[in-house]
């Protein structure tokens, strides 16, 4: 009788320990690890999309005649207006002093940068009338660039589109889903 009792209470304590460990593992897996995995990096300077509402989107984000897409404008585009500071903002001081005067391209961190073995072309997606915001964040009311989270293991951005998202949309739209349509 005594022995039975002992083993029963032992089971109870063991259960509590197991449950506690389980909760800790969940906290680690769901909260601690994802935070550890991504490091937040700041952009070289802040860019306010709101402040540039007087120009259209494709003045900076445009297609090249050969069908490729220039996602982020080069410095020449900025120089057109910002040869000297237009306001007294800190980000503009950085732009003029660090980049325009030194004639150095701004090393923007691209939120949607794809791995090297991926071929992506904006042209077919635009031809199918897919909105930019279906894949990219809506920048129409954005005054401050969001922080860039970089995966510490792979070095890619957290908001890089995953293959599953591409595949899913291709299947739904009846587009070709063969590997080589997107891989090179």
């Amino acid at each position: 009788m005594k022995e039975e009792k002992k083993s029963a209470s032992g089971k109870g304590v063991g259960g509590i320990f197991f449950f506690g460990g389980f909760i800790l593992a969940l906290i680690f897996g769901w909260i601690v690890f994802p935070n550890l995995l991504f490091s937040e990096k700041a952009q070289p300077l802040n860019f306010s999309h709101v402040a540039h509402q007087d120009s259209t989107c494709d003045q900076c984000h445009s297609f090249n005649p050969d069908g490729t897409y220039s996602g982020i404008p080069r410095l020449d585009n900025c120089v057109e207006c910002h040869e000297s500071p237009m306001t007294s903002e800190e980000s503009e001081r950085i732009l003029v002093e660090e980049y325009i005067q030194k004639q150095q391209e701004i090393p923007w961190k691209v939120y949607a940068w794809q791995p090297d073995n991926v071929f992506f072309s904006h042209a077919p997606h635009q031809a199918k009338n897919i909105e930019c915001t279906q894949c990219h964040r809506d920048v129409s009311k954005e005054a401050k660039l969001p922080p860039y989270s970089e995966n510490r293991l792979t070095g890619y951005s957290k908001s890089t589109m995953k293959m599953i998202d591409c595949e899913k949309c291709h299947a739904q739209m009846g587009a070709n889903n063969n590997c080589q349509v997107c891989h090179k």
Partner: protein
Amino acid sequence: MAIDLDRCTGCMACSVACQAENNVSFRADESDKLRSITWLEVYHLQNGKEYPDYQFTYLPRPCMHCDSPHHSPCTFVCPVNATTRDEVSGIVNHIYPRCIGCRYCIVACPYHARDFNWWDPKWPKSMESMLSPEVSTRMRGVVEKCTFCHHRLLKARSKAYLDGIDPNEATYVPACAEACPTKAITFGNLLDPESEVAKLSKDPRAFRILAKLNTEPKVYYLSKHQWVHKLGDNSF
């Protein structure tokens, strides 16, 4: 693709252009050809007769992109679907990060069109900036092969979309055909009866290598010599 062997001079410009276009790696010592990687190999064929009947020809051999129903020999055996045929373009391609390096496809290919990376590719420092960004480099332990310069098709289709042309009508030229000084290599859409390559494929000089295997290669060869036709049906 149609390759006119009567025009081919064996200069190997196609092979070199392919190597440069597709970031094909080479080894420090390339004297051991058994382990070197070549997507487009040029064979030297001889009729085996004595002078004055002696004749020879060169035969450039890219991947045949076999059109046999359902599967090409290589795509049929791949256990991980790393190599697949796009039924729209007809091009057989190989996705390197997906490849597990079992080399079953190399065994299955009757044309020896596939190569294996036994080592990580290495280029001299000064050459690294010359690599094409349009073709991903391979890593140790994966198979690679000719893609009919598939990246050029993707670019041509992309431009067609932007110009408002039907992307299925987009045309392009692979690096080998572009480099050929005698215009022996013709590239185009075999399904379009008006295309030059489709007309050449129906030429009486046309033959396909190892046609007896029913792999339906998409590369046609043209030669006026019957002994070349016969040799084309033998194993290499």
